[in-house]
């Protein structure tokens, strides 16, 4: 167990270093960062001073490690556009994105799982076919289109839900939440559905496929032969065995939800990190873009790590138990 965790953590560190390298190379691609910072007209001596101050005259490797070191110590630099420390910017935006991603994930899971189980248990029923067709739409419709259609229907035509923003937020220490106000709840519904739609279809199809697969196994046949009730077989034996791959995908998809919330955030003007990133791209605000990349990478890696550890909870075969040597 300890060896396993250690190995995973080392892998995670390696991945993060790679992500940091990509983020770091952003700075190189976009011309002279000093000119970007201070503009063309600054005198040469001034530029050299800044260059030395930022260690830009040192070898690339040294610069890279300085970059990593800064990030690790929480010094994320400042935004070129606004001059605000990036750490502060991200801290403001992170709760919005995470709340949106989690709401989208819960929406996808809460609807997708039961639909998947149902279509797996009754593959021939008419309702199952309907679900499958709907899921095909969910997979193939582009996110922004779903968002725009929702806005059109619920904001423009019906006027039930706000078309943009996050509603009123409540600050709880460093965390700002929209989930404690009515307008916050109203605001998150459509973005969460938009963001979760693809994942919903994905989870449904995955659960269905796994369910069909598991129902064909010998242990399900044996469970039937033992006379267990359908409920025990379907929701105990079968569902539990489908959970392993589902956890993997859902976990990975949570990362994807965070990363791909960019589109949803821009459609709904959701004040999250994705929107921040888009603004940063428009202004070539490299430090913000770089830190965004690193942060997203970090969330991905963190989620993967948690998923791996969750396996242990679900699958006893992975819990290596020294005391239980195999009998003859």
């Amino acid at each position: 167990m300890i060896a396993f965790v250690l190995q995973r953590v080392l892998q995670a560190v390696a991945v993060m270093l790679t992500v940091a390298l990509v983020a770091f190379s952003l700075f190189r691609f976009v011309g002279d960062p000093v000119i970007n910072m201070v503009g063309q007209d600054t005198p040469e001596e001034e530029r050299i001073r800044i260059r030395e101050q930022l260690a830009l005259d040192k070898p690339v490797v040294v610069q890279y490690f300085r970059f990593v070191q800064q990030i690790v110590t929480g010094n994320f630099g400042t935004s070129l556009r606004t001059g605000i420390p990036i750490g502060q910017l991200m801290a403001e935006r992170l709760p919005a994105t995470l709340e949106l991603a989690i709401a989208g994930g819960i929406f996808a899971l809460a609807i997708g799982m039961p639909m998947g189980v149902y279509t797996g248990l009754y593959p021939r029923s008419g309702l199952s076919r309907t679900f499958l067709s709907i899921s095909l739409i969910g997979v193939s419709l582009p996110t922004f289109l779903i968002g725009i259609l929702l806005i059109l229907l619920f904001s423009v035509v019906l006027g039930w839900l706000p078309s943009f923003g996050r509603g009123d937020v409540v600050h709880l220490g460093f965390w700002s939440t929209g989930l404690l106000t009515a307008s916050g709840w109203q605001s998150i519904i459509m973005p969460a559905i938009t963001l979760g739609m693809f994942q919903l279809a994905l989870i449904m199809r995955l659960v269905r496929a796994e369910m069909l697969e598991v129902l064909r196994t010998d242990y399900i046949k044996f469970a039937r032969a033992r006379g267990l009730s359908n409920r025990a077989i379907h929701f105990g034996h079968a569902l539990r065995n489908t959970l392993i791959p589902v956890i993997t995908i859902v976990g990975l998809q949570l990362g994807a939800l965070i990363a791909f919330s960019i589109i949803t955030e821009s459609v709904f003007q959701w004040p999250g990190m994705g929107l921040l990133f888009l603004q940063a791209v428009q202004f070539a605000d490299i430090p913000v873009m770089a830190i965004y990349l690193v942060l997203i990478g970090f969330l991905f890696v963190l989620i993967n790590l948690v998923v791996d550890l969750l396996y242990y909870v679900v699958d006893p075969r992975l819990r290596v138990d020294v005391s239980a040597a195999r009998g003859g």
Partner: protein
Amino acid sequence: MATDRSNVPLLEVSNLRVEFATRRGPLVAIDDISFSIAPGEVLGVVGESGAGKSLTGTAIIGLLEPPGGITAGEIRLAGRRIDNLPHDEMRKIRGKEIGAIFQDPLTSLNPLYRVSEQLIETIRTHLPMDASQARARALTLLQEVGIPGAAERLDHYPHQFSGGMRQRVVIALALAAEPKLIVADEPTTALDVSIQAQIISLLKRLCREHGTAVMLITHDMGVIAETADRVAVMYAGRIAEIGPVQDVVKRPLHPYTTGLMGAIPAIGHDVHALTQIDGSMPRLDSIPRGCAFNPRCTKVFDRCRVERPDPIPQGRTAVACWLYDGAGR
């Protein structure tokens, strides 16, 4: 409904027919077979791969799955017809009155549940016991099937047991509610040769002690010779010959059985290796007219190619072969 007549066989299969619906019409996999099993009796079922042995067992426990299904005949358990029961009624019979053991113990147990959980849920599904009574029974069962250190191993997961031990757990599960009949479909084929004999003798001993009848499906004539009271030889979805094991083994009547019995292998040997019959069993969609065995039979004559032979009684044996029509008796 008649139940307690002492001469009623425990299991009575009559004129059973199992078909698969296919796009090109029904495919007959079990064609009009009849046999019975007395209380406490061990009926061996042998035959080449694809003869319909598993399908017969599956039909009895009511687990045929579409497109397969029973299209004719009936199955009676202690006089009560069970082939047309509603799903939930049949569920109550499975495990309670008919237990089942399948080929592969490695995959018969749910990997995510402790052995104790699987035993207890089975016990409590069928017997009116509370959790602690069921647990006590689970422990007794594990001890009965000879799992060393049963008390400690009760809460282990299946992957913590070896193949042989897992099959013992499977046997414990099949016996959990004291069924009157166990359908054992090649219970040792997937096991190490060295363990096969142990498992068979365990099964035999337990069933004798509990008075449980067994339908023992196997490829292994050696197992049949040592374990079964009677044996049914299946060929292409029909019963070629059925009778007391000594008779069938020592004096096989059907030309197919004669071929099979060319030599009785020691336990653990596969009958295939010793089969000296030329050719192979026909596929379901190309079973010849008349006797299904006629293309391979050394004694074939004209009638065999036209008329299908039904089982003809020969002493305690019944044999589906025209050679015995009018003969004997």
